[in-house]
């Protein structure tokens, strides 16, 4: 494929990537700054990462965020998968259209409204706000994303596999856990990752629904930034970026390996 990049392509790519990544690069670079002043470079240092380790407030917030993320993503994945199966499998039941609409509504609902309504709800039922309210709120707004991901996989799922399992004597429960679930697993895992990322990322809904002792990392960062950006914040953000990047790289590698294996299998099948 001997096509070469034209000048126009090069220029638009440079602009595009700069627009997307220059701020992030700056943030990463300044996290290794020796100076306390964010905008003045005075040499390379990892001091802010060591400082970070001693900052109990930030570490506590990170721990809360992680717990909320794992718990809410897991529950949202279970509920979202169940909703996806109901919507993909049962083409006609009373209230199907209503359910479809209600499952997908949070996708387009402004976060402020979701957060506010959840706050009013928790106040109304006199539920102590804190870790659990944030988790519940995150479950309710990430569930629909899981449903979207899993449902799109189920549409292309070959139902005769389930028929075959039942024909061979497997009850519907065994069929689900041994045939359906292993085959839609990549979509379920992707749904979990998406839910986890959204939870990790959320500031607005968490701010509305949180209470004493349950400050998430985005909330902590936001409140600290209001007092001025410190290199410590840059360090936290760099770590977050590193975690996300590693996740993306691992997923890409797994996908690539699968493609290679698939190609090898096809060759093997052709050879007999």
């Amino acid at each position: 494929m001997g096509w070469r990049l034209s000048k126009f392509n090069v220029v638009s790519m440079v602009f595009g990537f700069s627009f997307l990544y220059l701020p992030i690069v700056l943030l990463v670079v300044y996290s290794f700054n020796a100076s306390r002043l964010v905008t003045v470079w005075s040499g390379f240092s990892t001091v802010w990462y060591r400082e970070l380790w001693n900052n109990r407030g930030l570490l506590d917030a990170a721990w809360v965020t992680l717990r909320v993320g794992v718990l809410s993503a897991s529950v949202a994945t279970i509920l979202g998968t169940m909703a996806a199966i109901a919507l993909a499998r049962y083409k006609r039941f009373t209230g199907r259209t209503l359910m479809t609409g209600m499952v997908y509504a949070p996708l387009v609902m402004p976060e402020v409204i979701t957060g506010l309504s959840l706050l009013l709800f928790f106040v109304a039922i006199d539920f102590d706000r804190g870790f659990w309210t944030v988790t519940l709120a995150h479950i309710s707004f990430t569930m629909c994303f899981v449903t979207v991901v899993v449902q799109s996989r189920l549409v292309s799922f070959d139902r005769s596999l389930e028929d075959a399992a039942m024909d061979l004597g497997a009850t519907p429960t065994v069929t689900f856990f041994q045939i359906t679930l292993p085959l839609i697993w990549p979509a379920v895992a992707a749904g979990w990752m998406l839910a986890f990322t959204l939870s990790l990322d959320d500031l607005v809904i968490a701010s509305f629904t949180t209470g004493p002792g349950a400050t998430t990392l985005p909330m902590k960062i936001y409140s600290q930034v209001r007092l001025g950006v410190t290199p410590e914040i840059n360090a936290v953000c760099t770590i977050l970026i590193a975690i996300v990047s590693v996740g993306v790289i691992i997923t890409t590698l797994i996908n690539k390996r699968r493609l290679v294996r698939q190609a090898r299998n096809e060759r093997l099948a052709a050879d007999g």
Partner: protein
Amino acid sequence: MKSLGSIRRNFAPWIDPAASPFLRFEGVTKRFGDFEAVDDLSLSIFESEFFALLGASGCGKSTLLRMLAGFDMPTSGRIILDGEDMSGIPPYRRPVNMMFQSYALFPHMSVAKNIAFGLKQEKMGKGEIADRVEQVLKLVKLEDYAKRKPDQLSGGQRQRVALARSLAKRPKVLLLDEPLGALDKKLREETQFELADLQYELHTTFIMVTHDQEEAMTLADRIAVMDKGRILQVAPPAEIYEAPNSRFVADFVGNVNVFDGTVRAATGDRVTIETTGGFDIVAERDVPVEAGQNVSYVLRPEKLKIAAEPISGPNVMEGEVWDIAYFGPVTSFHIRLDTGAIVKVAMVNATRQSPLQLTWHDRAFVTFDEDAGLVLTQ
């Protein structure tokens, strides 16, 4: 004594009045909304029989198979297998197994695990499962492929794995949904004979659904021809071909010439039919017909003889050679009669060189024996 076709069959429980059927459909109807997929259908199938349901798509044959497997429940009527009423029994408790058209092999399991899946559901011991897996793999000649995944197999190998998997539980009835439909022509012909041999060895009752008449004819002991949710005829292949009971069956299975007409005279063992084409047909009177009755005379193309010179005697038609197709074993002629009707003639190329020399637009003469065709009243 004359008999239909040239095969003498020793296995024919359906003509034995003492034999009791292994599987019975009793007045089975299946409706999907307003659509009647299967319409008040009754059918008996015997043990060790290889039975084929033949019909175009949408005729209800697959619905019938799915009802037997338990994936669909009849709207009314009963299915009785080996004396047991199948009503309300879910698919996972029925003593039948199905080989799916798409094969439906579990892509995340190896060949051996696919086959073992059904046996594990029975809580069979580990050693016994391993033995059984080995045994059925040997049956389909795939011993060396146990560890492979389905996507590491060719189409023909997948078909064998699907077959092995459905046989592993030793079902009372094996259901085959278009078993050879996904294979290419050459492989299909080979596999047909293997499947027939396998069934003969195992003595398992096989029920096959197919739209391919050749597949049904090669494999089945008996064929049921279906249309619009009903069975039109149930008979061995030779009888379906040589003695169809209706124009639909005659037309659906193989090629046929149909002459519509009125009975002019029916005397002794002869019947004379005045066709709408203006010529008379003298035929054997093997069904009771009266003078004046409207009948059809159906005639397979290979039962006709073609000549370039005029022929004397009854049952001679004259026309123009309209089309010729050389297939190798047979040559097919389309003769256009002076009335405009087309008569199909198939000439078997029994010798390498033919004395007959015909080309397009030649005059040709066609004749047939009195017992070559069949008088149909419906």
